[in-house]
Each structure stands twice: as C-alpha cells, then as structure tokens.
C-alpha cells in the first residue's frame, strides 16, 4: 500500500515511541474466494471489465454457464464452471473465479527478460508494467496457472492487477466490491488465511464436508489469492486448478544454471580462440614473389 512509505520507524525529539508503532499489521494483501458460497453470478467479471475499462467481448456458448473457455488479455477475471459428479453419482456445479493468483514466487517474473516489465510490490501484488514489456511471451511459459495473455494489437502482455490502482488508494479490488454473496473477501494475508481456515473448519465440522480446506499452494510460496474448496484434495475439478503448482523446472533451469553454463561456454569460446591466436598465430601462405605461378 502506498501509505507504507510514509509509515514512521524512528522519530527525532519525541517522547516515547513513534506514534502508530506496532499498530500496523501484515501488509501482504490477499483475496479470499470461498467457492462454497459462490453462486456464479459473474458480477465480478462485469466489475473487473468496468473498472479496468474493457468492454464485454463475445461469449462462447458450450452448453454450460461458462462465459468463454479462458481468460483473455482484455478479460482478466472468469468464473470457471464444472458440472462435477460426486462419488454417489449426484451432480454438483463447482464454480471458481479464475484470475492471476499473485504468487509469492511468481513464475512470470522469473521467466521475464525485460527490465522492469513485471514487478512484485512489497504488498505481494504482481503487476505487469506494459511500458517495459517487450511482448516476448516468456511469462506464458513461466506461469503455472496459464494467466498472462498477449494483446496482438499493442504486443504487450496483460493480466489481473489485483486492482493495484484501487488497493494503493485504500480501496478493495473491484471484484470484491461487486460480490453479492460475500464469497469474496479482501484484506491482509494473515487475516484472510485465518478467515479461510475458520470457514473450512466450519464446513468440516458443522456441515460434514470432510475434505473442505484452503488452497494456498506452497509450491509457489503461497499465493495472494486463496480459495476455500469443498474438496481441497481435488482442486483440478475446479476448472483445472493445479494440485501442486510450481515454476516449471525448465524455466528454473533456463533462468538459473543454464545462464551460468551458457555464459561460461561463450566466454570460454572467446578466450579459447584468443589463446589459440596468442599461442599459434595466423596461418600464413607464403606467396611466391617470382611470378612462377604460385609454386611454393
């Protein structure tokens, strides 16, 4: 949050501690999505478009409530519907609001080659800076949730900003504001985790939903968007939420050891030919000077 920079740590000539010391809580922001109370109304989709200035795009009808198959560069928030068959054969409609998860360890940021095109604020929000984006699409390979999308007209990548422009002014994200059932919550990571665990416990103990739990995947260091799921053992059923998301090992290798190996190899090559020249020198052909037709 923008005010964080104005928080006072030490103060001169002041009797006692700085005013407000230790009253601030965790500044890691978090969105909590309780899928058990989502009714799939899509108000969050509309609010997202409205706040971010995009118009409604063509929908794709596939015999379900699904607006379109996946998020788009100008459609950052999408409820994924899944008609899920329970073990006893009955049908339930699983609905999950899909958007950027704002990973603590963001794969998009790890993969990005452009200076300053992706930032992670101290409050945990992962944000694309389109003025620095070169549109290479590496973030598409880095993201374990298939979130970054390419705008072919501007050749820039886009995704949910967690309404950083609202949050930095002390407002909650637009989707949260619009939710009619209160299945969306926004606050500090600590508070949202507590709320989520409490709700999951309630579902388990009071409603007999034994597998209810919180989705806050450790593989990406936890996320800035967490879910309460009826069945936390099967997140894939919620429109393909990965069970154990992590930055692809290829991306880790490419951005880690491969850099060293490659750079050392290139440097070794340049060093090698230089040393060769210093040791052996050029290959000279002794040209005849007597005009006898190139006899050596």
């Amino acid at each position, binding site marked *: 949050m923008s005010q964080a920079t104005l928080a006072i740590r030490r103060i001169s000539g002041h009797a006692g501690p700085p005013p407000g010391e230790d009253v601030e809580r965790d500044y890691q922001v978090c969105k909590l999505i309780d899928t058990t109370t989502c009714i799939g109304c899509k108000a969050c989709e509309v609010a997202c478009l409205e706040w971010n200035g995009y118009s409604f795009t063509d929908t794709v009808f596939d015999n379900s409530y699904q607006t379109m198959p996946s998020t788009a560069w100008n459609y950052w928030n999408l409820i994924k519907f899944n008609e899920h068959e329970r073990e006893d054969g009955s049908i339930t409609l699983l609905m999950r609001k899909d958007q950027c998860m704002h990973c603590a360890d963001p794969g998009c940021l790890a993969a990005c080659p452009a200076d300053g095109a992706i930032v992670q604020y101290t409050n945990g929000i992962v944000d694309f800076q389109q003025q620095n984006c070169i549109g290479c699409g590496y973030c598409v390979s880095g993201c374990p949730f*298939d979130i970054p999308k390419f705008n072919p007209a501007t050749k820039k990548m886009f995704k949910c900003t967690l309404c950083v422009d609202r949050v930095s002014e002390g407002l909650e994200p637009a989707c949260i504001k619009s939710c009619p059932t209160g299945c969306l919550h926004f606050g500090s990571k600590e508070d949202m985790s507590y709320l989520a665990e409490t709700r999951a416990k309630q579902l388990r103990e009071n409603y007999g939903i034994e597998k209810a739990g919180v989705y806050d995947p450790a593989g990406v260091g936890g996320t800035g968007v967490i879910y309460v799921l009826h069945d936390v053992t099967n997140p894939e059923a919620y429109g393909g939420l990965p069970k154990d998301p992590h930055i692809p090992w290829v991306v880790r290798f490419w951005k880690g050891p491969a850099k060293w190996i490659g750079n050392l190899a290139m440097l070794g090559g340049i060093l090698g030919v230089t040393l060769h020249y210093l040791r052996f020198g050029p290959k000279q052909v002794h040209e005849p000077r007597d005009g006898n037709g190139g006899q050596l």
Partner: protein
Amino acid sequence: MSASHVISSERAAGEGGGRILRYTLSERVHHWVAAFTYIYCLITGLAFWSPYMYWLAALVGGGPTARFWHPWFGLAFAVSVLWMYKMWHRDMNITDADRRWSKAMKYYIKNEDEELPPEGRFNYGQKLFFWVMFYGILLLLISGIGLWFVESIPWSLRWLRYLAVTVHVAAALATIGAFIIHVYMGTAMVRGGFTSIIRGEVSTAWAKTHHRLWYDEVTKGRSPETRSPER
C-alpha cells in the same frame, strides 16, 4: 608478420601468382545475407538471454523493436541457410579425404599444415561448421515458431512450451560456439579467407596450401596463370 606485410605479399601474388575464383558472387551474397541476419538474431537473442546483456537491445532500437524483428530476421536467416544448403550440400558431404584430415586435425590447430593430408574445396572443419549451422537453424526455426506463437500451444500440451525454450537455448548456444570459431578462423587465423568471401578470389598458393584437391580439380588441364579471375 604484420598485417600490412600480408596484404603486400598478397598484392605481390596478384601480380605474380595466379588468382582462383573460390566463391561466386551468388555464394558471397548468400553468405553475407546469412551473416547479417544471424548477427541480428545473435545481438537481440543475447539481449533476451541475460539481463546483463539487455542493453544490446538498445543497439537495435530497444526491447520491443528487438522482439518484433528477432523472429523475422530468424526466418530470413533460415531461408538463407536453406538456400546455402541447396547451393553447397554436395560440397559438404563428408568424404574419405575428410576422415583422413580429421584424424590429423591437431596439426591444423597447431599450424603444422605440412603434416595434413590434402583436402577438397571445404575441409572437415568447415563442413562441420556448415552442418552445425544447418541443423542448428532447423531446431531454432521449429522451436522459435513455438516461442513466437506460444499461446497457440494449448495448456494441455504445455510441455511443448518448455521444450521450445530448451531447444531454442541449446541450439542457439551450439551455433554461437560454432560462430565464434568461424569468425576467428575467417578473419584472424586463416589469412586470405576473409578477402575470399568478400572479393571471391584466393591466390593459387593459398588454394594449394589449404585445399589441394580442389586446386587440382579446378586447374585440371589448364595452367593457373592463364586462368583469368572471374567475378
């Protein structure tokens, strides 16, 4: 021996010794189209490779511009290499002479060329460079198209996205290694090589020393002095 001495001795050869056409105009043009497109891809590719080399993108107009042109220059490079393949692949077959030469390569490296068996128009090392670049660009082209249209690779086949990254990096590094050696040999190590790919000609002494079998072939039945330089 200083560089100026080399030039003057070549001039002397131009007056006294014969000159032989080594590369036709068409071959030279193709070589330089490939060279310029490759170097563009190299500069921009290195910019995307490491944050410490991102400044290279500024040389060609900044990150977004570099990203826009990189695949197009890559395509142009691929076309020029395929063209070279059409032009040279017969000359690039590995022959028995190459196998003999490859066993004696250490003498070439140590500049003890008198110990080397005779070679044809291209020696084993040049052929190796050609094939590294040829297969390198095939891999770069296929993986590059994957990276270019990465969103078109469905999420269910996302291993292809990761494969494209891996192959593109590995193939690029292999061609960079070959490129470093090629540029070193063509400019600094093998004197006369650089002028031959610019003006097309070498001296008969050069041809005899480096490519004896080719020299014998092109001068068969004619005396080298009477062979007029072609361009």
